[in-house]
C-alpha cells in the first residue's frame, strides 16, 4: 500500500541523513545538513503551497526573520537552542499578522504579495542598522567546540527540526485542517460554503509554513555565525524551495523531502562536474524534469509501481 511505501521512504531518508557522520567527512556532513535544512523548508512550504494551493514565495521572509530573531536573541545572551525556539515563535507571530494581510489575496496576487514580504523584511533589516547592523551584517556568537563536534551538532539540530515539521505534516494531513486546506486549494468559494473557515485555515497554514522556517533560519544563523540582509532574505531561496517541492510531489508528506534532497544533491554533482555551465545544466535538468516527471519524483514512483 502507498502509505506503507511512504513510511519506508521517510524512514530511509531520515536514516540516510542521520548516517552522514559515518563517512567521517565533515564536508559530507555539511551537505547532509543542507539537505536537512532544505527538507525543513520544503516541508514548511508544503503547508501553504502544497495543501492549500497558495503559491507562496514567503519562505525567505520566514528564514530571514528567523535568522535575525535567533541571532539577536543569542547575542543578547539567550542560550542558543532557546533562541531558536524564540525565533520560531517570533516568525509564527509575524506569519499570523502578515498572513491576515496577504491571505486576503488570491492566486497571483498572493504570490506577489508574499514575494513582497521578502523584499520588505530585507529592506527593514538593512535600514534598521542600529539593531541589525544594516548592510554590514550581524555577527552571531560562535558556538565553541571543534569542527567535528560543530558539524554533527548542527546536522542533528536541523534533523530535529525536520522531524518536528514531519510530525506536524502528518497531523495536518490526517486531520480536519488538511482536509479543509485541500478543499481551499480546489475551490475556495465552495470551501467557504461548506463551512470551512477559510481565512483561519489559511492563516494557520501560513503560520505552520513560517514556524519551522524560522527555527531552521535561526539554526542556520548560529551555524554560519554571520548573517547579512541580502543573503538572509534571498530571492533565490524563495523560488528554489517551491521548485523542490514541485520536483518531489506537492501536497504529500514525502515529496518535499525527496525533492529537496534531489535538488541539493543534483546541484552538488552538476556544480562539481561542469564548472562554467553548471547553472545552464541545472536549468536544463529542471526543464527536463517538468516534462518527463509531471507528478514529481513521487509520481514516478507511483508509475513504476503501477506498471510493475
Amino acid at each position, binding site marked *: 500500500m502507498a502509505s506503507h511505501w511512504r513510511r519506508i521512504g521517510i524512514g530511509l531518508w531520515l536514516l540516510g541523513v542521520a548516517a552522514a557522520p559515518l563517512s567521517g*567527512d*565533515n*564536508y559530507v556532513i*555539511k*551537505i547532509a545538513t*543542507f539537505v536537512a535544512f532544505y527538507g525543513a523548508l520544503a516541508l514548511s512550504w508544503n503547508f501553504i503551497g502544497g495543501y492549500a494551493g497558495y503559491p507562496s514565495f514567503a519562505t525567505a521572509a520566514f528564514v530571514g526573520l528567523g535568522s535575525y530573531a535567533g541571532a539577536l536573541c543569542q547575542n543578547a545572551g539567550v542560550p542558543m537552542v532557546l533562541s531558536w525556539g524564540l525565533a520560531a515563535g517570533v516568525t509564527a507571530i509575524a506569519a499570523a499578522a502578515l498572513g491576515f494581510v496577504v491571505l486576503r489575496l488570491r492566486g497571483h496576487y498572493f504570490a506577489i504579495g508574499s514575494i513582497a514580504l521578502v*523584499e520588505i523584511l530585507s*529592506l527593514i533589516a*538593512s*535600514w534598521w*542598522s542600529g539593531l541589525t547592523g*544594516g*548592510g*554590514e*551584517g550581524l*555577527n552571531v556568537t*560562535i558556538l565553541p567546540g*571543534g*569542527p567535528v563536534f*560543530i558539524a554533527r551538532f548542527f546536522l542533528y539540530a536541523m534533523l530535529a527540526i525536520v522531524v518536528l515539521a514531519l510530525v506536524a505534516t502528518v497531523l495536518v494531513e490526517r486531520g480536519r485542517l488538511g482536509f479543509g486546506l485541500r478543499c481551499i486549494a480546489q475551490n475556495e468559494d465552495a470551501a467557504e460554503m461548506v463551512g470551512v473557515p477559510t481565512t483561519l485555515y489559511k492563516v494557520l497554514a501560513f503560520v505552520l509554513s513560517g514556524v519551522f522556517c524560522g527555527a531552521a533560519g535561526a539554526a542556520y544563523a548560529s551555524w*554560519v*555565525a*554571520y548573517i*547579512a*540582509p*541580502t*543573503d538572509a532574505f534571498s530571492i*533565490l531561496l524563495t523560488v528554489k524551495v517551491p521548485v523542490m517541492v514541485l520536483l518531489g510531489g506537492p501536497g504529500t508528506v514525502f515529496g518535499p523531502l525527496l525533492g529537496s534532497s534531489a535538488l541539493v544533491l543534483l546541484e552538488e554533482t552538476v*556544480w562539481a562536474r561542469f*564548472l*562554467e555551465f*553548471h*547553472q545552464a545544466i541545472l536549468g536544463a535538468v529542471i526543464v527536463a524534469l517538468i516534462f518527463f516527471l509531471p507528478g514529481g519524483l513521487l509520481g514516478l514512483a507511483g508509475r513504476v509501481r503501477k506498471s510493475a
Partner: protein
Amino acid sequence: QTLKIGAPLALTGGLADEGKKQQVAYDMWLKRVNAAGGITVGGKKVKVELITYDYQTNEQRASQIAEKLITQDKVDVLTAPFGSGHTKVVAGVAERYGVPVVASVASSESVFNQGYKFLFGTLAPNGGLTDALVKVVTKQMPTVKKIALLGREDVFPKSMAASMADAAKRAGIEIVYNELYPVSTMDFSSPLSKMRSVKPDWIFMSGYTKDLILARKQMADLGVTAPVITMITGPAYREFAEALGPLAENVTSATWWSPAVSFKSDDVFGSTQAFVDDFRARGEKGEPDYVHASAAAALIAVQKAAEIAGSLDKTKLRDALAALELKTFYGPIDFTGNGMNAARELPIIQVQGGRAVVLAPEAIRQSTLRAVK
C-alpha cells in the same frame, strides 16, 4: 610534499567580474612560482597547488566550499573571496579548523575585529583612503568647503562613506548631504536633485561600479555637478571609464594600489613593472587594478610565510604570517594585531584623458587635481 592553497572564487553571479580578476592574479603568481620550480620550505623545494572553486557569489556555498577545501582537499591555507561579507563567512569556517586565511579584497574594520586569529588581509584600512583624499583636495583645491555623501548600504561602501564623513569633519569641511541608498536602487534622480539644491563643492559616492556609472550619468542628465566628484572605487576599474566615456573625465578616486606606484621587491615578480608586463603579456585588457595586485600580494605573503616558517604546519604558518614584514611589488605588507595590513599612504587617482593618473602621494604624482567641468 606540496603547498595546497584553497581559493573560493566568485566566477559566476553578482561578483563574477571581481572573482575573475582574483583568478587571473592567482594564476600569474602561480606561473612565476612554477617557473622557479616551486617554493623553498625548510631547505626543500615544495610544489604549489592552487585549488579553486566557484562559489557563485552565494554565501551558503562560500561556507560550504571553505569546508570542502579544508576537509576534502586538505588545503594548508585559504584565500578569501571578494568583498568583506563573504570574507567573514569563509573566515568563520577556517577559524574553527585553524586554517590561515589571507583576504585580498576586504578592507572594512568590521571584518577584522572579530578576534579571529587566522585571518589576515592585504588591504590597508579604509581610513587611509579617505584621509589621503581629504589631504589632496584641501591642498590642491582649498575652495572646497561643502561635501555631499552618498553610500551604498553594504559592508564596504558603507564603511567608506562613514570614514569619509569622519575625515571631512576633521578637516572642517561641512557635510551638506549624507545618505545611504539600498542595494536594489535603480535610480538616483531624487538624491541627486536634492544634492543639486544644496550646491556642494565635493560630491562623494561609494558603491558598486554599476551604481556609480548610473549615478554619474544621471548627474550629467540632471545637471548636478561639483568641482570635485569622487567615486569609490569607480575610476580604479577600467570598466568605469569605458562605460562612461567622456563623463568619466576628472572623476577622482582613492585606491590601494596603482601601477604607477613603482616598487622594487624580492618577490616572484621582482618589481611592479614586471607584474604589469606579465599582465599585458597574458593578453588582458588595459592595466591591472588593485584587485589584481592585492590578490597576487596575498599569495606572496603566503609564500613568504611558508618559507620563513620552514614548515607547512598551519599554526606555524599563521605565526609566520603574523610576524611577516615584506616589501612586495604591491607595496609593504605588515599585518597588524587584528590581521589587517598596516596603514600607509595610499594613491589618489583621477581620470584624465580617459585613463587614471596619480595625484598623490607626491613621490609618484603624475598630474594635479583638475576640477570637473
